[in-house]
C-alpha cells in the first residue's frame, strides 16, 4: 500500500500548505495600514457601512478568534468580498477561471510540442551544433520577461504585421453561447468552426508567451535527464543489444526521464497562474490574472488577497495532480498497489 501512503502524504502536505497560505493571507490582512473595516468597506464607505462591515468580519473579537473565524470562512469558500463590485471574490474568480485554464492548457501543449522534440534531438546529438544552438535558445527563452515578450509579440504580430488579433478573446459578434467559459470549447460545443478558429487566433499569442519560458525550462531539464539516463549503466546492455541511438533515446531514456519532467511541468503550470497576472493584462483577456491585476490597480486589497488565496489553492492542486501522475508513471510504486508479479 506504499502507493496510497505516498498519495495521502501528498494530500496532507497540500492541506498543510493551504493552511500556511491562509495564515499568511490573514497576517497580511492584519498588516494592512489603516483601519481594517474602512479598507474592507472601501474608501467611499460611510461610518454606518464601516460599522456593519466591522461587525460582519468580527473585528471586535480577539485576534485568535478572528483567525479561527477566518479559517472557517476559507473552509466555506468565502474568500472575501470585492469592494469595487460588492460581489464575493469567489464568484468573480469562478467566472473568469475557465478562460485562464484554457490559456494554460493551450500553452502547455505548445510548450511540450516545442520542448520534447528539441530535447530529444539535442540529447541524441550531444555536443553537436544543434545541441549547442538549442541550449543557447533555451537560456535566452527562459530569460525573457513574460510581459515584455507579450507586448512585443502583440505589437509586431498584431499591430505591424496584422497576422493575429491584438487583444481580447474573440471578434465582435461571433462569440458562441457561454457554456464552459472557454471560448474555443464553447465554439466547438456550438459546432461553430469559424468561431472556434477565431477564438484560437486570439489564443495563439498569449499561449506562446507562456509556452516559450515553459518550453525553455522543460527542454533544459529533459535534456539533462535524458543525458543522465543515457550515461547510466542501464544503457550499456541496451547498446549491446544492437539498439540504435534513436531507440535508446525514445524507448529507454525518454520513459525514465518522464518522471522528473512531469513533476517540473506541474510546477511550471502552477507558475503560469502567476504569469497570467502580467500576460492576461497585456492581451486584455478575461482571467484570474487580469482580475488580480485590476484589483491591484483599483486598490481593492480584499479582492487581491482573496485572489492570492484562490491562486494558491489552484497551484497546490496542480502540483498535487502532477505528483500523483508522477507516482502512477513509476511501476515500482504502481506495482505494489496492484500487487502484480512475484515477491
Amino acid at each position, binding site marked *: 500500500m506504499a502507493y496510497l501512503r505516498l498519495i495521502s502524504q501528498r494530500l496532507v502536505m497540500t492541506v498543510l500548505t493551504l493552511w500556511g497560505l491562509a495564515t499568511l493571507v490573514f497576517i497580511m490582512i492584519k498588516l494592512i495600514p489603516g483601519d481594517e473595516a474602512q479598507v474592507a468597506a472601501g474608501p467611499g464607505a460611510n461610518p454606518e457601512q464601516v460599522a456593519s462591515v466591522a461587525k460582519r468580519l468580527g473585528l471586535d473579537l480577539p485576534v485568535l478568534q478572528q483567525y479561527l473565524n477566518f479559517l472557517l470562512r476559507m473552509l466555506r469558500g468565502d474568500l472575501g468580498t470585492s469592494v469595487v463590485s460588492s460581489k464575493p471574490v469567489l464568484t468573480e474568480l469562478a467566472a473568469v477561471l475557465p478562460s485562464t485554464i484554457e490559456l494554460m492548457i493551450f500553452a502547455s501543449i505548445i510548450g511540450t510540442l516545442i520542448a520534447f522534440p528539441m530535447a530529444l534531438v539535442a540529447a541524441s546529438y550531444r555536443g553537436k551544433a544543434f545541441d549547442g544552438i538549442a541550449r543557447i535558445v533555451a537560456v535566452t527563452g527562459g530569460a525573457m520577461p513574460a510581459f515584455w515578450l507579450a507586448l512585443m509579440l502583440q505589437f509586431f504580430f498584431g499591430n505591424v504585421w496584422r497576422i493575429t488579433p491584438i487583444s481580447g478573446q474573440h471578434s465582435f459578434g461571433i462569440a458562441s453561447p457561454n457554456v464552459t467559459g472557454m471560448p474555443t470549447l464553447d465554439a466547438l460545443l456550438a459546432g461553430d468552426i469559424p468561431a472556434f478558429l477565431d477564438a484560437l487566433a486570439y489564443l495563439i499569442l498569449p499561449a506562446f508567451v507562456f509556452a516559450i519560458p515553459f518550453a525553455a525550462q522543460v527542454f533544459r531539464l529533459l535534456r539533462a535527464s535524458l543525458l543522465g539516463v543515457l550515461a547510466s549503466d542501464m544503457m550499456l546492455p541496451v547498446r549491446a543489444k544492437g539498439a540504435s541511438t534513436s531507440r535508446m533515446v525514445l524507448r529507454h531514456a525518454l*520513459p525514465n526521464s518522464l518522471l522528473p519532467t512531469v513533476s517540473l511541468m506541474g510546477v511550471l503550470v502552477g507558475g503560469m497562474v502567476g504569469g497570467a497576472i502580467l500576460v492576461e493584462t497585456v492581451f486584455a483577456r478575461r482571467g484570474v490574472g487580469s482580475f488580480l491585476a485590476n484589483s491591484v490597480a483599483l486598490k481593492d486589497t480584499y479582492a487581491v488577497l482573496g485572489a492570492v488565496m484562490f491562486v494558491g489553492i489552484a497551484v497546490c492542486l496542480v502540483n498535487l495532480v502532477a505528483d500523483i501522475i508522477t507516482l502512477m*508513471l513509476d511501476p515500482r510504486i504502481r*506495482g505494489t498497489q496492484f500487487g*502484480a508479479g512475484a515477491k
Partner: protein
Amino acid sequence: MGVDTILTDGIIPAPVRRRPEALLQVEQLSIDIATRDANVRLVDNVSFGIGRGERVALVGESGSGKSVTAQALMRLNSRVKLSGRVNFDGKDLLSLSPSQMAAMRGQRMGMVFQDPMSSLDPLMTIGDQVAETLRIRGISKRNARQRALDVLDELKVERAAERLDSFPHEFSGGMRQRVVLAMALVGEPDLLIADEPTTALDVRVQERVLDLLDEISRRRSLAVLLITHDMGIVAGFADRVMVMYSGRIVEENEATLLFAEPQHPYTRGLLEAVPRADVTVDRLRSIPGAPPVPAARPSGCTFHPRCDRAMAICSSVEPGEAITPSGARVRCHLYGAG
C-alpha cells in the same frame, strides 16, 4: 636467448596452436582516452584470439583494462579511441560503420554486465527487455515474445510465462542476472562477453549462474569471454586464461596449465589470493600495493614495484613476450632471458 624459451616481441604473432576455428582475432588493440590534459593509454597493444565455442577468461584487478577491452570488442564506449584490428568472423569490427556495428551487437555478439540491479530498465517489463534484441531486427512482437520466453525457460527462470510482464524490481538479484543473460542470449550470438557477471551476487547464486552459463555454452557451442578479477570462478569454467595487468596481457595459457604452473609473478600472486580446498594456508595472501593508474605507469615492467622477484632490469626495460615450455605466452624478464 635461452634454449628452452622463444622470445617474440609481440609484433610476431604467437605460433598457431591446436585450437578451434578462430571466431575472434584481436591484433595490436590499443585503447586511448583523451582527458583534459593528455591522452591516456588504457590498453596497450593487446593481441589474442577466441575460437568458436571456446571459453576464455580475462583476469585482472580492477583498473587493469579488462572491462575497457571487453567493451572495445563491441565498440560500446564511444569516448575511447580504438586502434589495431578486431577481426570477428572475417570482418574487421573497427572499420564497420556505426549501423553495421549495431547490427553485429546482440545478434553475433552479446554482452552481460556486472551489476544486474542497474543493468535493467526499471520502467520496461522483463519480457519486452529480453525481446528487444529481436524486435530491433524487425521480428514480430508475438515471435519475439515466444523466443524470449524460450530463453528464460532455458535459463530456468521459474514461471517465466507469468513473469514476462513483471518489472525488474519484482525480481531477486540472481533472477535479474538471468534476465540480463537472457537479453544477451536471445539473439543467439556466437560470442558472449560476460563482464564480471557474478560479482554483485552472493556465492551460492554465483555458482548457479556460472553452471547455467557453462551448460548453455556447451549446448549452443557458444564462445564465452569471461571477464573477472576472481581466479576462483575461472578454474571450473574456462578453457584458456589471459591475465591482464595495467593494460597489457602478461600471461596466457590453457587453464589447466596456468593453474598448475603459473609463470608470471603476478599470476602467482592472483592464484595465491584464492582460497583453495586442496591447499591449507594460514591466511589468504594478496599482492601488496595497488595497480598503477593508467596515467602514471611505472617504467619498464609495470608490475615491478609490487613484484617479489623484481630484478634490476625490471624497472628500466619493458619485457617482451616469451613462450615457456608449459606453453604460456608471458611478459616477464624471468623468462625473456634477453
